[in-house]
């Protein structure tokens, strides 16, 4: 009874609030994931679908969450595409956590020395470049890294 009462009251009163929800996640336990986030949908094709294949058949969740762990061979482009805006900001500033993660993906041992070198090459690698151009630029710049691994 209490539940029903609260349900009705909250539903009635908060209709507007729910309708405006654009975020992903369940928030109050109320806020609900919009199935496709902007970054999610653009990178969907790059990720493994294995996780949800079986499920889609049985629980009606097909169309959601095809993204799963990122395929190894797509890791670089997926990372750059998802992080381009904050990544190039960090690179231009010469510091940031996304540079460390980038170092790991490109197999660079020394993330600390990577930041200044990326900063020096900002114009060449990042300035007005799209994600695949950035990946190409990084591949060229960091070719030495993967050799060390």
């Amino acid at each position, binding site marked *: 009874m209490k539940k029903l009462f609260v349900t009705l009251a909250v539903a009635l009163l908060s209709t507007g609030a729910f309708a405006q929800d654009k975020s992903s996640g*369940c928030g*109050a336990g109320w806020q609900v994931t919009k199935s496709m986030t902007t970054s999610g949908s653009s990178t969907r094709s790059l990720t493994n679908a294995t996780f949800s294949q079986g499920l889609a058949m049985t629980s*009606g969740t097909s169309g959601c969450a095809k993204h799963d762990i990122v395929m190894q061979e797509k890791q670089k482009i997926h990372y750059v595409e*998802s992080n381009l805006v904050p990544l190039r900001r960090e690179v231009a500033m010469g510091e940031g956590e996304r540079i460390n993660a980038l170092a790991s993906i490109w197999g660079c041992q020394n*993330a600390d020395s990577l930041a200044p070198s990326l900063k020096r090459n900002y114009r060449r690698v990042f300035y007005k470049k799209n994600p695949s151009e950035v990946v190409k630029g990084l591949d060229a710049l960091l070719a030495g890294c993967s050799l060390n691994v």
Partner: protein
Amino acid sequence: MIPLLIFLSSLATSIASEDLFRTQWIRSLHKDNQKNKAFWFTGSGDDPDLELKATISAFNAKENFDSNNHAQCLYPGRRMLIERHLGTKLFPHSKCPDYDQWIHRLNPQGVSVVFAGNYPDNPGSLFGHTFLKFNTAGAAGSNLLDYALNFSADVRDEIGFLYALKGLSGGYFGWFSLDPYFMKVNEYNEGEGRDIWEYETTLGPEEARLILSHVWELRQRAQFKYYFLSENCSSFILNLLDFARPEWNLQTQMPWYVIPLETVKVLHHRSDRVRKTTYRPSVRLRAQHAFTQLSFQEQTGVKRILDSKDGLTDETDPKTLKVAAMQIAAIHSRKDGSLPQALVEKEEDVLLRLSELSSESLLKNNELPSPHDGHDITQVSIGAVHDERTAFLLGYRPGVHDLNDYATGYLPYSELSILDSSLRVDHKNLEFQKIDFLSMTLLRPWTVNEKEWSWGAKVSYQGNSQLFAKNADQFLGEALLGMASVTQDSLLLGFLAGTYISAGELNLDQSLGLMAQTHLIWNEDTWKSVNGMKFYQDLNHTQTDSYQLVPYSNLAFHDGPNLDYQAKFVWPVYTPGLHRTPAQLTVEIEYHF
């Protein structure tokens, strides 16, 4: 029950292990909330013993052995449990190409519970959001390459009332998603301006792996209804943690509703559960903070860059450029990622110039008080009220936070109060003083850089309402929109205007009109003073007075987050000169738990 014990006693390595297995096994079956009968080999989760036998027999099947469709590959969580506790001799271990690759790539080392703070643009998120993070052996100095597991409702196109009603009554199914953690950080920190706290639990690699393998099997066959209040993102997290570490029994420590903030507290309050807390301020907060660290001259420089119409100014100070870049990022987070082309180009140019200058690190952000430091959500109160007569007050509020409460851990100057009720008791009467079904307020500073509206809404039932001196029971609805400003000493001034509607038993009680409200809030660590004035203007002329002023003043002393001593003074004033209602003084002690 007994057969299971007999069956196990021949297999389990010790009594302790047997008990542990038994609890974990039963929890892995989700008897109460799992909706798809095909998830259980026996068609129901009622008999764990039978289900165990059926599972072991399915695991022995020759068909599909070493392929993805073998029962062992559909239920790797059950397999892991059985092998761990009952030994590896019950069935030959099948290869599972997809699962093996998946778990190998994830290679989880531990589990964190991640809390994303409130989202000012959406009142529904005043409680925050939680998800799990599986800590992989990723990059040094960064956990961005970890993986985040999110449980949420599968909602596609519903909007409005139906959406809310369906969500609250279990009309949606829940689903899991697994994403690289950087996508979540980008979504919350960058995209929505929300702060993130990570609570690294004491769960180890094997427990992390157990959870993931169990989630794999849930993804294959299980189906869960999603209830916004009770079976939501947070309750599922507790479910999974309880499965991996049965003795925590986190779920039993929750009321029937589970809100994200509370799950964080229940974890954090015990040192054996959380190893480390990490804070990630949102880009908005970082930009704000960096801006306040600048000199006046530098601040002017930042504004010049942001305001310039034609390309970049000739700014060459790296610090100014840096903060300008952060301000643009903060604007990103408000525009849902889509920036006007001119601003995108400006950002590119600012960054290019910045990259060519050497710059030092900006000052680090002061850490915000963490969500787990806030007051608990259920409130009981006892007090006395004096107006025409004196009476005792008994109050109860299931959730969550109001403007007078201890502010730490909640969105500043916000209120989300549900079913705030009080009873008035004296020697002859017992009556409702009020029930505020829902009261929401969000006061946000309107600044040059952040032009954000403040608003408030309330639906309540007032016993002996003093609105227009009716002295009768009334329903009252209010909706307000306005602006606020906050000074450096955390003094808030706000002005909101809107409309109200009131209804009672008599025709004379109906009123519809305009209203306005001012706020003056002074917030210190140990006390808080909330003052203001409400103004009602009746439009349908059913009232003898055409307008009414209600000034009020509330002073609260905080003894820690959970205990408040409060005094409130209200003095309704009518058409000038006519004071028909006595002033009302209330003193109360509030306790949160």
